[in-house]
């Protein structure tokens, strides 16, 4: 038996507290509801619109570095000028941007080649075009780094690096360089020198002679330049060049190895590329002397040598010494005014050059002539400027900032004349005195992003370019023409010139792309040249070419290469099952076999079967694919005929330049790892001949041989001679089927 009130009692609440509680602004404990909310019969004013949505989680906005750079302390605050046009309206709420790799500054990353639809619709074509135009923008509406100058990145699909759409970034015929290589910071400078005819011809002509005794950077540079030309706009990789760089002990000692691009501050990065500039030129000079067995000045010296004369004299005794040095690049530093001891860059690089190139100091020495301590005058002056003048702009951040505001600091031309032993620089030659006339033909620039990340690009003038705009931007694998006004504009906060290259206009030499063909020494094709330490008793499975068999344009050869893994692929995994390839595996050439493909008695007989001597650590021999056993590439223990890479490479390079046509299966990846560019006309790739278009499937060599040739290939370890031979046979079969019009039927099977 219980009695309850049928409904809860409804009695009025108090309207006010008679004694309103004191709520202190200081004491957090005082509850804010101590003052009661009066009765209300309408929606409260504090109620918020039901559908109003707010977005969270955006990355914090960074303050524009330009504003930070120009800020000063006034009273206790950091104050800076603000430019409405540059930085926009105040207090603008920025739209939420998701951190995704899909867009970068509004440019959609192009799809992987494998993702592209088989049929390109009008829509998708115009989409790509629009996207590309966006990519090639060289101005920015938001005071950001313009799209074309921002650092480009290779993304990897599961198919590896060749699936990346490099062509999207370059529609010129000038090849760009990939970034997936050690010391990719070198790329811009390598391109600069590629486009100077004197230097180009110099490097490439060195290839006509052999250099098999030791590794020469000069040869690698020559091969690289040749590759860049033959690529005709397709992307290249300076793999072998950098491979050698990493092996040279002096490179490591000089600190030129960039350890996977660990973050360097802007000054450090500038010093690095300038150090590389100096080293490269010195090394090229030494290499030339080595190759040609020279003692004195080399061709390089005559191209880039800056002759500096130093005269040491004294009033105290008759001691007088005169020396002549040659440098290949010149360091431009800022001037220090004696008045304020404040460093300034002056109003032009010419002022700095003049000062740097004409030095007059006094030193206290112990004289070797008169035996006493006295003052001597040391006068250094430039005796002669070379045809190609390479300047390292050794300025710090503040000085480079000053440069932006100094119009014309880096002029597009200047004149150099000597007067009474002293060199003078002038931007003009109004009086028409006899003087050397120099023009700026290229410079390397450091690009700094809003987040403070630095990378290098080069701007190069290509006089024989088919386009109206001669200047081109080389941003790793992004290559495009630029108007000269933009190139000569140094006022942008994100661009700093680091290395400037001037050329004497009097010396105009055309590119001689085939210069190496003069007196080309091809003797390596007809003899053995093994790596040091190779055992005398070795198994040989080939028969050297004879002089009579010298390849001519069109000579058919079949080639196959085997590789070992130096470093495994690096992936990023996620717990939801997704994985992405961050860095593909590093491969190294282990064995290359070439067999004769011309009809005749020696048809199918191999004439090259080189195992490459490898000194670096090998992560995985990939024996089941490569057939290479551990120890095979170690000259100390191997039973195979080991050859240095430079020897094997030269042979292939010779075959290429003598016009051979290469037959093989999957040659694209082979040539990539060998690091050689073979024009399409000289390639017969059976992997493409038997490609199933509809299913988008490639067929393996083993399968094709079994199906089409009714032969069982060795089921044991792979053998490149066998594979080359199989490819050759397949090619024959292909020609046969094609001729009979039965190719399609065979494919359908």
């Amino acid at each position, binding site marked *: 038996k219980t009695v309850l009130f049928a409904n809860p009692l409804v009695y009025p609440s108090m309207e006010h507290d008679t004694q309103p509680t004191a709520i202190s602004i200081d004491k957090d404990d005082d509850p804010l509801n101590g003052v009661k909310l009066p009765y209300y019969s309408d929606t409260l004013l504090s109620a918020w619109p039901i559908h109003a949505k707010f*977005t969270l989680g955006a990355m914090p906005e960074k303050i524009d570095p330009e504003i930070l750079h120009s800020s000063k302390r006034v009273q206790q605050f950091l104050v800076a*000028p603000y430019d409405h046009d540059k930085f926009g309206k105040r*207090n603008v709420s920025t739209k939420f941007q998701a951190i995704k790799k899909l867009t970068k500054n509004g440019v959609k990353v192009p799809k992987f080649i494998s993702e592209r639809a088989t049929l390109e619709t009008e829509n998708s074509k115009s989409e790509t075009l629009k996207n590309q135009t966006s990519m090639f923008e060289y101005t920015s509406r938001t005071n950001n780094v313009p799209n074309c100058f921002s650092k480009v990145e290779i993304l990897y699909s599961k198919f590896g690096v060749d699936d990346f759409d490099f062509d999207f970034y370059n529609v010129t015929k000038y090849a760009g360089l990939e970034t997936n290589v050690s010391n990719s910071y070198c790329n811009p400078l390598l391109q600069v020198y590629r486009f100077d005819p004197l230097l180009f011809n110099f490097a490439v002509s060195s290839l006509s002679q052999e250099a098999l005794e030791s590794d020469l950077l000069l040869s690698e540079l020559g091969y690289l330049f040749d590759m860049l030309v033959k690529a005709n706009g397709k992307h290249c990789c300076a793999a072998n060049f950098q491979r050698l760089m990493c092996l040279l002990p002096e490179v490591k000692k000089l600190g030129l190895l960039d350890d996977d691009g660990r973050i360097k501050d802007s000054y450090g990065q500038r010093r690095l590329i300038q150090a590389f500039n100096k080293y490269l030129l010195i090394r090229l000079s030494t290499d030339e002397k080595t190759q040609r067995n020279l003692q004195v000045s080399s061709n390089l010296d005559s191209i880039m040598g800056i002759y500096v004369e130093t005269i040491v004299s004294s009033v105290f005794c008759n001691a007088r010494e005169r020396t002549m040095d040659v440098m290949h690049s010149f360091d431009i530093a800022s001037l220090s005014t004696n008045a304020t001891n404040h460093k300034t860059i002056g109003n032009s690089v010419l002022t700095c050059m003049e000062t740097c190139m004409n030095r007059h100091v006094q030193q206290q020495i112990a004289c070797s002539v008169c035996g006493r301590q006295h003052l001597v005058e040391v006068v250094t002056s430039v005796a002669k400027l070379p045809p190609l003048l390479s300047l390292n702009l050794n300025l710090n951040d503040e000085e480079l900032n000053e440069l932006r505001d100094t119009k014309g600091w880096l002029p597009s031309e200047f004149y150099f004349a000597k007067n009474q032993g002293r060199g003078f620089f002038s931007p003009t030659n109004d009086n028409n005195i006899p003087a050397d006339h120099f023009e700026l033909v290229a410079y390397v620039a450091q690009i700094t992003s809003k987040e403070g990340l630095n990378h290098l690009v080069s701007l190069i003038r290509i006089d024989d370019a088919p386009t109206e705009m001669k200047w081109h931007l080389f941003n790793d694998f992004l290559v495009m023409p630029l108007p000269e006004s933009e190139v000569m504009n140094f006022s942008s906060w994100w661009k700093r010139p680091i290395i400037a290259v001037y050329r004497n206009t009097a010396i105009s030499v055309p590119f001689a792309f085939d210069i190496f063909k003069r007196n080309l020494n091809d003797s390596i094709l007809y003899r053995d040249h093994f790596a040091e330490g190779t055992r005398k008793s070795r198994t040989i499975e080939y028969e050297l070419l004879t002089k009579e068999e010298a390849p001519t344009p069109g000579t058919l050869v079949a080639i196959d290469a085997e590789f070992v893994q130096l470093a495994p692929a690096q992936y990023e995994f996620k717990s939801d099952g997704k994985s992405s390839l961050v860095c593909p595996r590093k491969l190294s050439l282990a064995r290359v076999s070439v067999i004769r493909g011309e009809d005749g008695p020696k048809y199918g007989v191999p004439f090259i079967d080189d195992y490459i001597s490898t000194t670096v650590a090998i992560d995985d021999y990939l024996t089941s694919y490569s057939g290479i056993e551990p120890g095979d590439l170690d000259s100390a223990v191997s039973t195979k005929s080991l050859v240095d890479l430079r020897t094997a490479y030269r042979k292939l390079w010779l075959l290429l330049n003598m016009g051979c046509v290469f037959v093989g299966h999957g040659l694209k990846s082979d040539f990539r790892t060998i690091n050689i560019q073979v024009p399409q006309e000289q390639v017969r790739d059976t992997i493409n001949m038997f490609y199933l278009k509809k299913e988008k499937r490639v067929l393996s060599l083993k399968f094709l041989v079994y199906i089409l040739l009714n032969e069982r290939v060795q089921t044991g370890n792979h053998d490149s001679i066998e594979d080359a031979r199989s490819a050759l046979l397949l090619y024959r079969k292909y020609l046969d089927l094609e001729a009979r019009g039965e190719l399609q039927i065979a494919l359908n099977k």
Partner: protein
Amino acid sequence: HMLFPPNYHLYAPAAPPHIQIKQYPNERLAEDLFIPNQLRETIQKKNEESLQVLPMSNLPDAIDVYHSLYPISQSFEEGSDRRSIIYKAVSNVDGKLYALRRIENVNIPNEKSLAPVNSWKDLGCANVVRLYEAFTTGAFGDLSLVMIYDYHPLSSTLMERHFYKMSDREFPELITEDLLWIYIVELTNAISMVHSKNLAVRTFDQSKIIITNKNRIRFSGCGIADILDFETNEDMESLQKADLRLFGSLILNLAKSTIFPQKIQNLSDLEIVNALGLSSGFKDALKWLLNEEGTIRDFQQIICDQTMKVVNGLQMSCDFMESVLGLEVENARLVRLMTKLDFVSDRPEFQLDHSWSETGERYPIKLFRDYVFHQVDEAGKPVLDLTHVISCLNKLDAGVEERLLLVNQEETSCIIISYKELKNCVEETFKFLRGR
């Protein structure tokens, strides 16, 4: 004029449940940013009930030190026709609210009968409504026993919840096994603490177990039997044994409502248990209780895994409460901060004195207010972003190192300043105002 209970639905209207507003994971509606509406409303209702007064009543003005009596509920004492009426009352001694239970027509021979109160006072059990004192009074016109307990606003009894239709529900609330287990664990806690103090619960009447929050029950009649039956000297051991048996009956009663009455007509208790559509673990525990097989300590062992689940659930609830509290404690500070900002900005007496607002510490404050409250989008349209306001003010309150760019109105110059420095500006300016 008459005032009515607050219109809670007008307080902070939200979208009706059947309308789903599409939200990305990083999107928030205004209601997502603050204390959940349901929770807030419950608390406000509790606060409201605490304030209710009876404008015109026949009730005595005061009973001992307790005044402002407001009737809450009424029932009959077990096995008698005495009424047991509960009032909300205010103590004149400490100004706090208490529940005053008046049992009418009680003859207390001497004050020794009231001694049991002292044993109950310091129990400290979360599942027993705390008893403070007891006394007799004639203020109601008879000899009544008055017992003073903690006041739990908006509570209802187990009876009302699971067996009656109430105004806000069409049906009594369904009992699930999960709910039964929670009740079991909580009551076991109560009984354990009671027995450990050498007391016995003695009454498991469903009208004397109140629900003070969702899934939170408490014995609300402790001490009554001790006083009313003071003369009869039952030994504690049999009383405690009886507790377990009564416990079992209560659970059985509740569990019975999960099954059609017809199905269990004329069945014995144990047969009913077997007929229930509940887990075997539950049935075993219930049978154990009905068979009086041991002490409450033994029972703890039987239900130990369910107890552990309750531990987990309670920790989660505490976490939830703490997170809500985190929001609202912050909001209290924001109100104070915004008030300070408003105190300091645009004071008329300084409008003419430009040096006040354009220099020194005041200047960034002005620009900061624009930054927080007067955002626009690229087209110049006002952006009214609550999360931006709350985020900026929270950072200002904490004085973080993050730096801001504050641009002047003419857009010719700007200040780069950290929240830490800004906080200092605000504090200094406020101090200045005070000192003036």
